[in-house]
């Protein structure tokens, strides 16, 4: 189980690192975060980090559905 969580965190962080450093995210009242700050939040397992993981997993789960619209 812990291995799964670590794998997901690693995946999410790699996906974040693939983004341009010029990008920031506002996550409602949580505040504003640069790409690198989001990576740190994932490491800290904070509420924001969990929101980032949830957002990335939502994206990954939706990908097949999104790509099916192209074919």
């Amino acid at each position, binding site marked *: 189980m812990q291995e799964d969580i670590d794998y997901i965190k690693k995946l999410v962080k790699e996906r974040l690192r*693939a*983004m*341009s450093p*010029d*990008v*920031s*995210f*506002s*996550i*409602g*009242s*949580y*505040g*504003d975060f*640069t790409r690198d700050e989001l990576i740190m939040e994932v490491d800290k397992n904070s509420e924001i980090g969990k*929101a980032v993981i*949830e*957002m*990335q997993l*939502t*994206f990954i789960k*939706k990908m097949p559905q*999104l*790509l099916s*619209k*192209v074919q």
Partner: protein
Amino acid sequence: MLVIRTKHDIPTNYLYYYTEEIIEKAERRGFKVKIIEDQLEEKTLRKVIKKLKPRFIFFNGHGSSRALFNEKQEEFITTAASNLFQNTVTFARACSCLLELGGSAVSNGCNAFIGYNHPFWIARNHKSECHPLRDPVARPILEVSNAIAEELLKGRTVQEAVEKSHAKAADHILDLLFSKEPLASASLQALVANDTALDFKGNEDETIV
């Protein structure tokens, strides 16, 4: 129509400027638009709603599952005050408030409550922070949510307005998926997250005209 917006930090600044075009469109369509943008208090809001009886309330700001926040980052409308939305269609462009506030509002007489059941993400380019309308990263995200208000103003039902927003999101998502623009991935991920979180409670056939 009642527009509630603030401009006290970066995300609310973005929301603020993106409501401008909605206000213009509403006025062009003959809507009387009342704007509240500072000193947000439940008491003030109640007075305005009692006097003007708006059919459409468009909130732009921070929120949580159970409340909307004012410019001091304090809860100013909670589930305990959700009867405020009675006889309106309300669109809350704020984090997570569909979860509890939306349901509570509908139980207390709101015709329909449109909102998000997860955080609302705005992806931005650092270099455009002072000019939200010129930020290409944020634009698709805010245009897609603006579509809800635009469609309601055209007389579309709540269900149609939300579907239009989903359709617009799908168009942008497909464009962004194949974009070579290095910042596109940020817009894409925020769009998918917000589109997944968008929903409504209440009467799907309700309109504001």
